[in-house]
């Protein structure tokens, strides 16, 4: 089971990984900066390679509802888009959370609000981790910081989605989607012929028909369902937190950053250390569930925490909740498609913390 080494764009690596992981279907609609995903699936002819269906829908709304239909059949189906398109998908995502359907949704995020820019941003954090559509629900959210993780999170995403019967969102950004890096790809896996016991594939010889639905007009029963979801999210919080620590053990100051910002902050840690400031980085890999306990623990050992995101300050709210007042928490972020430089981040760290001391 040798892994194949290739040089690829993040978007392409994700598409290639999807075919190799035995994904059953992809439904999408073009939008920059993620159109390479569907282009790649069409160009390499996913159907002839693995039987994976790729279909260009008439809108993001149609695409997510095609995913609903396919996921309801117990199939591994996915869609991808970028920020404005993900907003359009929110209705379908809420229905999928309500119907407890596993699927993979990829957001190669760009700057907003509105049509915004096609350049990378991390301004969709709230939308991703707090629900996004209507109703009480959460997605599991994975934040890749490399082309390798764009590829790896396809399989991980589907594993989690089916384990918990819950949609999984990969929150990437235009930089990770567009940049080229080397990536190790898994060998081709066959698509699974097995069906889930809950899937609507025709009643067959089952005694009872299967229903995929999110409607429950009886308040007591709807509340019981809401409580069941809460229990599921609690389980996810207990078991699925993923993060990377970088030089946190002896750190006086902690960066918290994900995705592209985490790559910047890794360099910032090195620069800070070269001028005598002991910095470290905590990179959440799962944004929901958020590594709150880890951040809370690290907060006890450092002097200050700087949350770095390409946004006006969204994740910083969860960081502050995790720190729970133990130490000062600051936010630094560039927006509009601008990625902060590592030096800029170190300057902010000095202004916020070390120069005051």
């Amino acid at each position, binding site marked *: 089971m040798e892994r194949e080494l290739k040089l690829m764009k993040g978007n392409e690596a994700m598409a290639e990984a999807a075919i190799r992981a035995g994904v*059953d*279907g992809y*439904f999408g609609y073009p939008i920059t900066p993620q159109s390479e995903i569907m282009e790649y699936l069409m160009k390499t002819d996913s159907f002839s390679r693995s039987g994976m*269906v790729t*279909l260009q*829908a*008439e*809108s993001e*709304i*149609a*695409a997510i*509802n*095609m*995913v*609903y*239909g*396919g*996921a*309801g*059949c117990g*199939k591994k*189906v996915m869609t991808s888009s970028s920020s404005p398109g993900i907003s359009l998908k929110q*209705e*379908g995502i809420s*229905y999928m959370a309500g*119907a407890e359907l596993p699927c993979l949704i990829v957001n190669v995020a760009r700057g907003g609000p509105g049509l915004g820019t096609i350049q990378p941003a991390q301004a969709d954090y709230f939308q991703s981790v707090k629900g996004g559509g209507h109703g009480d629900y959460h997605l599991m959210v994975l934040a890749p910081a490399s082309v390798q993780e764009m590829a790896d999170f396809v399989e991980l995403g589907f594993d989690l989605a089916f384990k918990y019967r819950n949609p999984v969102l990969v929150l990437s950004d235009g930089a990770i989607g567009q940049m080229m890096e080397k990536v190790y790809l898994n060998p081709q896996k066959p698509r699974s012929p097995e069906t889930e016991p809950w899937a*609507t*594939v*025709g*009643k*067959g*010889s089952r005694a009872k*028909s*299967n*229903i*995929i*639905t*999110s*409607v429950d007009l009886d308040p007591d029963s709807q509340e019981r369902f809401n409580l069941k979801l809460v229990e599921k999210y609690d389980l996810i919080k207990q078991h699925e937190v993923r993060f990377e620590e970088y030089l946190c053990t002896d750190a006086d100051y902690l960066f918290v950053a994900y995705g592209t910002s985490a790559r910047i902050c890794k360099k910032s840690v090195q620069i800070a250390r070269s001028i005598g400031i002991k910095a470290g980085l905590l990179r959440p890999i799962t944004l929901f569930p958020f590594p709150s306990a880890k951040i809370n623990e690290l907060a006890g050992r450092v002097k200050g925490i700087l949350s770095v995101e390409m946004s006006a300050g969204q994740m910083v709210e969860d960081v502050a909740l995790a720190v729970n007042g133990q130490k000062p928490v600051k936010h630094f972020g560039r927006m509009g498609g601008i990625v902060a430089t590592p030096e800029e981040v170190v300057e902010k760290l000095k202004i916020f913390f070390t120069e005051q001391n």
Partner: protein
Amino acid sequence: MEETCNMQEIVKPENLVYKKSSLLLDKTFTYCPGCGHGTVTRILAELIEELGLQKQTVGVSPVGCSVLLYAFMDIDFQQAAHGRAPAVATGIKRLLPDRFVFTYQGDGDLAAIGTSETIHACNRGENILIIYINNGIYGMTGGQMAPTTIPGMKSSTSPRGRNVQTMGYPLKITDIAATLPGTYYVTRQSVHTPAAVRKTKKAMRRAMEYQSLNRGLCFIEIVSNCPSGWKMTPVESIKWMEENMLPYYPLGDLKTPAGENTNQ
């Protein structure tokens, strides 16, 4: 000798003229009395049973009066978001191409919020069946104007009658569907008389048989009454439908497979 009617002698298979389809579950319909939905739901269940499709059917129910359709029939079902049923059905059919997949939608669902999904599923030639109930009104939400509300027709959001100058014209979406190359069989029927019920059943059977050919989308509009939404008795509503709806939405086939005569 007095002649008595012996039940044992009457209840014999050869005397059976009507029975409930085994696919219909013992769940009370949520449709209003006198509405056409119940008849269409019954015909659909009968046909799935008669064609032996129960094991391989996946239905898609909409948002509207038939939102709970899945609760009435013993087949696998997905309940879709408002207007999105054709997209959901597309996802099912593309991944399970040998299954019989249908949607059941009202006019608000199919011809207003779901116009895009409807047109594009038709135009792609998805091998699904769309059953479209047109009663010219939003029944479930209490009788608001629908895209199909005919000129002058009163509703809770057109209380003085639909004024086409400000509210636009009713959408004959079935006529549009018939012009698209992806549709295979497009017809408009009704269930307001016993003869019409028989014609509808025949048309629906034809459409369901066509699905196995995988030659495109079949589209059946059923013009129906809505006694509650129209604020009429069932009998009044049927008369009103005949006099007002049917001239605007004439019954019959709009598109038939090339070379096939489906005149009924």
